């Protein structure tokens, strides 16, 4: 038995363990839906492999714990009736402990939390109870002798095996080797073209055809390189969906609700950073759906099927990836929402509010219509967090709901976030960048007649609908006089000959326009975060470097539009 743990091997094992444990979870969820020898065998293989690897790097306690679970799976393989809801929840519990244990081994959590050790003991007892329940089979296998179990309880994992593995806080992505081969090939071609260009430069033949061809090729290859590199960040949604399924399952278990979870489109790919950032908001939404959406045990109307359904669907849409979360629960009661909105001062008593607006209230900070906060989704994080994250990612979020029939959330997220198509505009004498996704259209105000003019802006008729146009400048106030130290972008010259552009922003059907000085161009940009000291100004979502080398701020007109619309109510 190796006493000295080789940190490096342990690190590799722990990395691998997270994958295997995810498989473990997936198999459990599959068995929970339908018991089959196939999935039980797969689960057994996962456990068995993990045990083997744990042993090989010297994590004997870890291996022994898996061994217990493995025995239980073995019992289930012989007697499928043991793989009932209770049995699965024990196996999922074991998986949870192994995950936490892994976390401790990674050195991220430090000392074991009492809760963890207690749970650990509890699961072992449960496993043991289960085995005595199946006494006959147990004897045949000769597992679960008292010695082993008590020994296991004593060995508090973290003390016994806390390996000094460097903490793995760095994000990592698994990439198919073939994707890297493609990159290598492109880079090879690119360097050939570059050599040609260099040669032409040295021999003063820059304007000759051979050189211009090479430059064209290089440009094409660079674009290709950009696309392929971005593809490296794309990961399918299976992990995320599995996690959400697990959350739904756990909450349903806790509350004794009978829920079927249907998952579709897990193969759709998205940028890993988008997935990572959306995980917590989506977990919250799924919790919400099970906790508040689905009727409590016993109060589900009899005309509905007894088992509730939650559907999680991902699909590719024109503007990115669309994720739908639908439940067939009680739906959103608009009256309750209005009552709460009035009590929070967001709406006036007796005011006529369109349904879309009513749902929008749900995203206000501190808004919760649940009369009593439950342990599950009443933790003070509300849908406002979801809204903020979706905004940050330049996505959209919509609610459809029918009282008594259920609720559907639709989120559309861009496939990748690091490079976006943008509109470069001139406003307040400076170049600003606007993500094209946020702009519904750009119009030339000269071809519209102004219907009315107020202090806040002018109203035009856009396809027979009144749209208010306000100056973009109002949202990017120049707080200080220009100094000669600062750049100044060119102003337009004659008033009449140049168009007078405005961008139209669509906020769930309501349109607002922002007038600016000039459209400078359209270009793909690489988003960079604003430095900490200037980050967090609403509507200023990032920065980038323009083709001219000049830095520019990325504006989020949707934030301005929402600001404008909410201000309008107050005035």
């Amino acid at each position, binding site marked *: 038995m190796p006493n000295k743990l080789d940190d490096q091997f342990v690190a590799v094992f722990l990395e691998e363990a997270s994958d295997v444990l995810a498989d473990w979870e997936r198999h459990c969820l599959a068995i929970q839906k339908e018991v089959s020898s196939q999935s039980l065998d797969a689960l057994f293989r996962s456990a068995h492999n993990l045990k083997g690897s744990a042993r090989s790097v010297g994590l004997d306690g870890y291996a022994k714990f898996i061994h217990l679970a493995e025995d239980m799976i073995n019992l289930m393989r012989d007697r499928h009736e043991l793989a009932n809801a209770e049995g699965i929840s024990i196996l999922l519990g074991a998986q949870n402990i192994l995950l936490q244990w892994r976390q401790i081994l990674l050195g991220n959590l430090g000392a074991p939390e009492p809760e963890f050790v207690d749970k650990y003991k509890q699961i072992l007892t449960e496993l043991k109870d289960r085995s005595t329940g199946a006494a006959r089979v147990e004897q045949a296998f000769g597992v679960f002798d008292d010695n082993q179990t008590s020994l296991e309880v004593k060995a508090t994992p973290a003390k016994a095996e806390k390996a000094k593995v460097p903490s793995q806080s760095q994000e990592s992505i698994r990439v198919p080797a073939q994707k890297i081969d493609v990159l290598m090939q492109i880079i090879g071609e690119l360097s050939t073209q570059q050599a040609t260009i260099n040669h032409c430069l040295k021999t003063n033949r820059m304007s000759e055809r051979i050189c211009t061809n090479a430059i064209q090729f290089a440009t094409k290859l660079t674009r290709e390189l950009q696309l392929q590199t971005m593809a490296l960040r794309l990961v399918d949604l299976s992990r995320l969906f599995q996690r959400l399924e697990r959350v739904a399952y756990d909450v349903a278990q806790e509350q004794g609700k009978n829920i079927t979870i249907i998952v579709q489109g897990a193969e759709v790919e998205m940028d890993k950073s988008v997935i990572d950032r959306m995980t917590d908001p989506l977990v919250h939404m799924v919790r919400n759906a099970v906790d508040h959406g689905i009727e409590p045990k016993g109060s589900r109307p009899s005309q509905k099927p007894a088992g509730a359904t939650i559907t999680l669907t991902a699909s590719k849409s024109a503007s990115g990836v669309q994720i739908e979360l639908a439940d067939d629960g009680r739906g959103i009661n608009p009256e309750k929402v209005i009552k709460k909105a009035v009590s929070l001062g967001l709406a006036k008593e007796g005011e006529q509010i369109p349904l879309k607006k009513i749902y929008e209230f749900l995203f206000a900070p501190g808004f919760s219509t649940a009369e009593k906060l439950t342990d599950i989704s009443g933790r003070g994080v509300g849908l406002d967090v979801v809204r903020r994250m979706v905004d940050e990612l330049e996505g959209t979020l919509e609610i459809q709901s029918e009282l008594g029939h259920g609720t559907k959330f639709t989120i559309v997220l861009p496939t990748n976030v690091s490079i976006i198509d943008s509109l470069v505009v001139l406003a307040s004498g400076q170049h600003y960048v606007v993500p094209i996704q946020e702009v519904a259209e750009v119009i030339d105000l000269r071809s519209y007649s102004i219907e009315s003019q107020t202090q806040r802006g002018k109203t035009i008729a856009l396809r027979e609908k009144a749209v208010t146009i306000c100056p973009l400048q109002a949202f*990017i*106030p120049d*707080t200080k006089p220009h100094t000669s*130290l*600062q750049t100044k972008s060119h102003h337009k010259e004659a008033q009449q000959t140049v168009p007078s552009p405005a961008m139209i922003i669509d906020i769930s059907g309501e349109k607002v326009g922002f007038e600016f000085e000039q459209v400078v161009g359209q270009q793909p940009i690489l988003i960079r975060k604003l430095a900490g*000291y200037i980050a967090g100004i609403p*509507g200023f979502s990032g*920065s980038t*470097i323009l083709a001219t080398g000049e830095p520019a*701020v990325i504006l989020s007109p949707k934030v301005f539009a929402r600001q404008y619309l909410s201000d309008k109510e107050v005035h």
Partner: protein
Amino acid sequence: MNATHTNYQPTQEDQDQDQNKYLLFRLGGELYGTPLMAVREVCEFQKVKPIPQTVNSFLGVINIRGEIVGVIDLRVRLGYSQTESKTLAMMVFGTEEGALGAVADSLEGVAKINHQEIDTKPRIESRIPIKYILGVGKFRDHLVTLIDLKEVLEKEEVTNIRNVTKKAA
């Protein structure tokens, strides 16, 4: 200051030498110095892209080799006039919230000033909290006010750049 990534191992003496080095710069007519080792880099002045809703002394951002770096005008911050000059220069410091540049009228160079020659309890009037003033030293018969610019930027500036009082629209 640990150069473990190179083969060069600085001796204690070297480190002491570095400790004594100050980057000298001019604001108005006055000479200032800041510990050299805290300065990430020095660069020529380039035109700054203004950022709305920030304080007056924050000029905006510049592009340093693809990195977007904020710039503070030390002259505005410390109450000197913003005169045009061909010698304007920027000192870039790494702060916890990202790199930050500081504009001075001119850079004078690097000077070694021994600890013994620094008056650590000077009585001077300054807009900088006294705790960031390391002392007053002498360089070629001129007095140099030594300030810990990095600390000033990190502790005082970084949190105050956003102009919260002015609300958009």
